[in-house]
């Protein structure tokens, strides 16, 4: 097996690409959770984003509309979640589960007429640099604009939460909704906004899958990535930068598993495919053991219903 630097560069580029949906969905969910809301509907919003993006691409032949549409559809689904949990005060866990079940069913219903249609080529930026610069070229160039956005997002999110007033308000609402409310903050409004933002990001994550990563529509194509994104938020102990690191690790495992299969190692395919899930559990155990560490950034009111007596 020849071992050249350029191949490693291509491998790293592939790892980055496979981590994009995880970064997007987890960064969105992180904001939602920081405001004290636990939305388990990530998988459902992602798959709805995937089919809406793909369907709009086919119908309008316009990738811009497709991407915006996928974000809107994720947002609409999260609005259902917001109405239920914030206005009708339902249990976050059960509502999120319902959202995922509903989203998977709905996506299959919409997607019935889009199975087997080939996708369109998504424009990749700086393709000439990718070819001409060895090693660094395939890492930094020749990606879609969504990938660059995804890799900037954790830093933006970090800055937003730590340095801006809005970020402070979101954290205050997540840590103590009652005191925030007493300070005159509209807790419900803040939480609604965070839920909608999370929904839009999950929709975008889905669009990345169906428009760029594997440009076609397959039923259930998110394949549990939404749940891994949820685990990533815990893995990152609610810190955006660690979301990025975690997503790269998971992307790495996915790509490694594909390459090990291709090389023909005598390890059962299924064991390799199970690696990301087993790794998630191991990582959760390792980080959850230290309760001080996990409590540092955990929104204190996560998943609790807030009701203001009028």
């Amino acid at each position: 097996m020849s071992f050249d630097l350029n191949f490693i560069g291509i491998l790293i580029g592939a790892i980055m690409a496979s981590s994009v949906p995880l970064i997007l969905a987890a960064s969105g969910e992180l904001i939602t959770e920081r405001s004290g809301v636990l939305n388990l509907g990530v998988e459902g919003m992602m798959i709805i984003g995937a089919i809406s993006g793909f369907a709009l691409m086919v119908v309008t032949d316009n990738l811009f509309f497709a991407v915006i549409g996928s974000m809107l559809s994720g947002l609409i689904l999260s609005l259902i979640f917001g109405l239920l949990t914030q206005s009708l005060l339902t249990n976050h866990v059960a509502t999120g589960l319902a959202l995922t079940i509903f989203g998977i069913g709905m996506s299959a219903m919409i997607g019935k007429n889009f199975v087997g249609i080939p996708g369109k080529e998504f424009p990749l930026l700086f393709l000439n640099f990718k070819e001409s610069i060895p090693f660094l070229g395939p890492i930094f160039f020749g990606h879609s604009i969504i990938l660059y956005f995804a890799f900037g997002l954790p830093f933006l999110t970090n800055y937003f939460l730590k340095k801006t007033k809005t970020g402070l308000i979101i954290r205050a609402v997540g840590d103590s909704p009652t005191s925030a409310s007493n300070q005159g903050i509209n807790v419900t409004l803040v939480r609604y906004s965070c839920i909608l933002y999370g929904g839009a990001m999950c929709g975008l994550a889905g669009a990345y899958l169906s428009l760029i990563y594997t440009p076609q529509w397959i039923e259930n194509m998110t394949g549990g990535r939404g749940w891994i994104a949820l685990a990533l938020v815990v893995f990152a102990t609610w810190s955006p930068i660690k979301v990025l690191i975690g997503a790269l690790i998971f992307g790495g495992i996915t790509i490694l598993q594909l390459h090990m299969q291709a090389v023909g190692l005598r390890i059962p395919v299924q064991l390799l495919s199970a690696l990301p899930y087993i790794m998630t559990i191991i990582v959760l155990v390792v980080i959850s053991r230290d309760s001080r560490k996990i409590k540092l950034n955990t929104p204190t009111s996560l998943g609790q219903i807030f009701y203001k007596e009028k």
Partner: protein
Amino acid sequence: MIKIERRNDVSRSIYFLTPVLAIFLTLFGGGIIFYILGFNPIEALKFFFITPISDLYGLSELLVKATPLCLIAIGLSFCFKSNNWNIGAEGQLIFGGIVGGGVALLFYNHDGFYVLPIIILSGAIGGMLFAMIPAILKTYFNTNEILVSLMLVYVAKLLLDYLVVGPWSNPEGFNFPETRQFSESARIPVLFDGLRIHAGIFITLITVFLSWLILYKTYLGFQIKVSGLSLKTAKYAGYKGKTMIIIVFMISGACAGLAGVGEITGPIGQLHRNISPDYGFTAIIVAFLGRLNPVGIIFASLIVALTYLGAETAQIFLQVPKYTGQVFQGMILFFLLGSDYLLFFKIKFLGLKKNEL
């Protein structure tokens, strides 16, 4: 003028009526979706909810599907009542099926009345052990049981896939991803010739009765309910929280494992990749729709089983994908949770008074 007031106490009649309201709203919502898709909503709903159970075969199929759903949901009610979010029942079902199926293959060509009970028992133990993983990790390492139990679903699915493709595949099976057909002594007998309804329904009914006994007539059941209502009270009363978490997960895993082994020794008769159409996830909806109450869960399992049958019929007559059932299942849960608002709040329609004008 509409006024919303908080209720002082939860009305019992509304508590059991809101599920009925949720079902009606779901039918209405489903009708709208069918209309948007270009079907006559009344016709489509008829294909979905009436055609499937208009003959004896359909009714038997309804019970075949309700049997595992009810069993899993009963187990989940122990977890949910005590605020433990086991959402990996699907994985526990599959693992129970794997263990039970392994034992069935071990006893291949064995005759004897003892074969089936051993298989069923091993399936239940398999599910129980698999459910203990998230429970033990939660109690000793403080991990989130939602994520761990869910990740294990994928692990169980892949393990099943590995076994039926590799070491356990039928040697005379032309490389199909399935095991041998189990021998007759390893099969749960059917109740009537020509129908698929099988004796597994009695396992479900016995489990429902036992659960009712445990939940409402024993100290353990009391502890479970108190911990669900207030963890602080439970701690103050000196209940052993960790032991209880493990017990409720064991009960719920055993039920899911029973459902899995019931499927493979009942209607299926072998192991293959798709031994469950997501029964483990759908049972979560059944548990909520039945208000975590054993009798309620029986009714709820019949209704949710109907969405499975309806989706199959609609797939044939209306050419909609079978995932349509999930749309209805999701909607039921949405409407049910949403209408719970009525439990805690009173909506008063007041006439305008003169001094308000």
